[in-house]
């Protein structure tokens, strides 16, 4: 089965740009800059076209012209006020639009954020250190893998209070205070370690994604772009490395 032409072109473009970006690992060079500028340009171009088509054409012009929804002119007018920033004498008018957006944004975000990130998280952090199990009396569960176990509640208590102590209490960290602050540092290091581990995993996943594509595009059905372009780019790097600089370094 023959591969569609646009897929083959796409494979060559994707492979070329990937390899050009990878040349940065050798050193900063014009090939990398070309790919970098293309990436930024294409991304911005795509977003502008998509936004124009969705917002201006489908959400503004068509409803007004085809369905007569003239009420849409009000948000359009408010949006247009923002453009007055480019006319110094009329720039003050943009404040009405910004006031509306900031006011509405804050009004929507503040209550929801307090509810979701402060109250719910405090609720989850403040847990009883012992469980009451009815007539059997109090019980202590030791399961580390169960987030709601009593042992985990104690670990969270230790972690939250020691980290808060390390950051907030401006007393000298000596004696018992030093021990608590050091415990806080250990908890922080564990948290940073976990975050770093996940970050490494994420970056490696991106590399795996690119390499998977390069392996796929080294197939004969695409015309082996990965192999040919790799040879071409290595050759170009070699030529660039041997080229004399326009301005030789000052050796005086």
């Amino acid at each position: 089965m023959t591969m569609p032409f646009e897929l083959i072109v796409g494979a060559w473009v994707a492979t070329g740009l990937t390899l050009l970006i990878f040349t940065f690992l050798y050193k900063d060079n014009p090939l990398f800059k070309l790919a970098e500028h293309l990436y930024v340009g294409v991304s911005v171009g795509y977003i502008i076209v998509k936004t124009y088509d969705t917002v201006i054409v489908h959400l503004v012009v068509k409803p007004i012209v085809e369905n007569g929804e003239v009420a849409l002119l009000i948000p359009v007018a408010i949006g247009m006020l923002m453009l007055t920033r480019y006319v110094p004498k009329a720039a003050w008018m943009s404040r009405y639009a910004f006031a509306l957006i900031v006011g509405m944004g804050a009004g929507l975000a503040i209550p929801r954020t307090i509810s979701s990130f402060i109250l719910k998280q405090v609720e989850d952090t403040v847990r009883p250190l012992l469980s009451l199990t009815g007539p059997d009396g109090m019980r202590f569960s030791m399961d580390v893998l169960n987030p709601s176990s009593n042992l985990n509640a104690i670990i969270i208590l230790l972690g939250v209070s020691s980290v808060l102590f390390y950051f907030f209490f401006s007393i000298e960290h000596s004696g018992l205070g030093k021990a608590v602050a050091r415990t806080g540092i250990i908890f922080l290091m564990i948290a940073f370690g976990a975050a770093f581990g996940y970050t490494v995993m994420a970056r490696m996943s991106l590399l795996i994604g690119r390499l998977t594509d390069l392996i796929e595009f080294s197939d004969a059905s695409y015309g082996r772009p990965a192999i040919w372009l790799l040879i071409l780019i290595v050759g170009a790097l070699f030529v660039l490395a041997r080229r004399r600089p326009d301005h030789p370094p000052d050796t005086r």
Partner: protein
Amino acid sequence: MTFSERMLQIDRRIIFLVIGLCTLLPLLYPVGLPIKITSEVRAVYDHIESLPEHSVFLLSIDFDPASKPELYPQAIAILRHAFRKKLRVITITLWVSGTGMADQLVTQVAKEMEKAYGKDYAFLGWSPGGQAVIINMGQDLYSAFPSDYGGKATKDLPVLDGVRSLKDITYLVSLGAGKPGVEEWYVFGKDKYKFEMGGGCTGVMAPGLYPLLRSGQINGLIGGLRGAAEYESLIGQKGKAVAGMDAQSATHFAIIVLVLMCNAFYFSLRQQRK
């Protein structure tokens, strides 16, 4: 210059080469290391598994091609699962830069699972506003998305029968690579309109979302390529994520060895200077 000094000043390109080889070789010659399923990924799977046929499932594809290697396999696995369970699948994106990719993704999986557009699934596209879109969808889905990605009126889509707002959604999964993403869907969607929700994210974001998972604000979390590989294993359709896990393990091993070696050389140098 001692050996330790030389090793600590090694050209960074040698390290890049080692990492590159550790990633490339397992991709070319896979070993098939076992994949352990974590409870947070299983929770998303179990919830979709427990949904009755024709439940309304909303998948928000909140990423763009920059996060494709991690989130694309997650999206494919979840869509395959939802289609297999015969759910009514509605997909949208809150990221304008991910619109074309999301359309391609949904169309590809639906074609593979032989699902009909409009009847079994729909892609509503992108609408401007970020979190405002979520609030708008909570009030009236048709005002947030008057037409789908192809320009067809959403009211005419049979897959949306009986769905007026987010309150009519049975389960939602947001696959987010930043803002707006999982957090925004919780804050402006689930917390306000009360539906069950799971999340998927890039590896970088996962530690920041674990507090939401622990407190039960989201019922499950698929983190990075590893999470995608776990989901692929759960649905029994191994794809790109599972294929990448050998490389992931090899690279992590290489990084651990490099960190240990660096520390060993550093301490040995300090000992010599004493």
